[in-house]
């Protein structure tokens, strides 16, 4: 299942990482190396095996749907690249 430059372009977009055109071939080579190595998993018989999503042998805890915390506007905004009047400010990106 060889990955080509077009596939890398598509996946990089899915990952939301801008990738310059001249990097695509190199990345395709690296990803192919990793995926070829990963393909040895095809040797394993996994028929009738349930996917394992967690190591935790206990039911997921639920809590009451109530506010336990809050009033931390300054904390929430403290690492914003830009903020004003209690809001995140994002750059204007529409025409």
């Amino acid at each position, binding site marked *: 299942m060889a990955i080509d430059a077009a596939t890398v372009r598509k*996946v990089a977009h899915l990952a*939301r990482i801008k990738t310059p055109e001249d990097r695509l071939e190199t990345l395709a080579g690296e990803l192919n190396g990793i995926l070829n190595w990963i393909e040895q998993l095809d040797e394993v018989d996994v028929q009738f095996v349930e996917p394992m999503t967690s*190591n935790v042998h206990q039911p997921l805890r639920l809590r009451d749907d109530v506010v336990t915390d809050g009033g931390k506007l300054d904390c929430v905004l403290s690492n914003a690249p830009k903020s004003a009047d209690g809001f995140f400010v994002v750059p204007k990106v529409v025409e």
Partner: protein
Amino acid sequence: MSDLTQLTLKAAVDGLKAKKFSSAEITQAFLSNIEASNGTLNAYTEVTADKALKMARASDARLAAGEGGALEGAPLGIKDLFCTDGVRTTAGSNMLRDFTPPYESTVTANLWRDGAVMLGKLNMDEFAMGSSNETSAFGPVKNPWKSKASNAELTPGGSSGGSASAVAADLCLAATASDTGGSIRQPAAFTGTVGIKPTYGRASRYGMVAFASSLDQAGPITKTVEDAALLLRSMCSFDMKDSTSLDVETPDWTASVGESVKGLRIGVPREYVVDGMPAEIQALWDQGVEWLKAAGCEIVDISLPHTKYALPTYYIVAPAEASSNLARYDGMRFGHRATEARSLTDLYETSRAEGFGKEVQRRLTIGAYVLSAGFYDAYYVKALKVRRRIAQDFDNVWGQVDAILTPSTPSAAFALGDKQIDPVQMYLNDVFTVTTNLAGLPGISVPAGMDANGLPLGLQVIGKALDEATVFQVAAALEDAAGFAAKPDKWW
């Protein structure tokens, strides 16, 4: 004064309680060591000297009043992926270069509750993705050890390379670390220190910068097995803020250190012999078996047939989880934001391209690929099924054995730059450690010997889920038999 920095954590805590020295004294001794050494070793990304001395004076006041917690006055280093309230936390990334959390991780909160003093934040591979610390945006950490055969600078391993290097070079009494595929145990093995990853769910992940949530687990890197038991106990707790946190008691593991291992059954998995493994690693492993036999253990040959599939499984599961976890870094609410963008998507893409380093980008791309339509079942679901096979391998042997002995790493520390060209070669470093992350089991690395060039090598003990007690018991027996007391020659 300098000998204070060579104390074990246990000896320091005892000395502080007995008022042989003050926390301010030992803290100052470490700060002086850091000041003199960090320019070369690059173990700390941030030294919090003022905060450390303030915490130390508060500890001294408590000690003077006959009070104080289990770690009262002990200066520690903190891996830079534990959020520390008001202290910059970068996870080794440019993405978080200016991030100062307004909250504290549960693990570090537990340490301050027990009286520990924070010296600063320790360097690491970017978002814990790496086995050599070369992916850090703050530059590689150097291993205090050097080979007798060459003057080359060596990696301390990764991703907790700053933690391992700082402990080995006496830049802290002990350090916090985290382990997703071997990131505690591999650097411990490379630096002649002890590192344990506990059972998944023992330590809260709240406030730890996430890499792969189903695998990440916090643990300590220390000078001795007893220190590891002492520090791990403080780090672990049940935490409502982490839905995967286990509601179980945290035992006093120091009680297991020194307990006889007579009659314990130790498994030796035949599949842990890998192609091209140096003869020295096999010899060390054989030696470990002999030590445990001499201590009265019964050695049992066991089979973990899916071992060879653990690393490829990991390199699907971990990037998939990372691509989901790291989606939060989009330049909007925190983290790096690109200054020039023509559209919303362009802003995301440019911010992430600028903020993430090469290895992180590579793994996020793999993660997006294995989760994408058309490949989700073939790669991701398949890997989750193999993961269950790997976990079942362990379940199948616990009836026959109480713990498992393996080498920690397939080699001693390698030179910086040595394995950067081929990502797969780099990934193979975690071949012995990654299985326990996939299965959620505790694993410890203990320094057990040297290679021909005088570099430390580690042995790993793997235990049943929640049975850290036996892991510490066996690890202490190995430590006792090995008598590893060597320190690196000071060149830095």
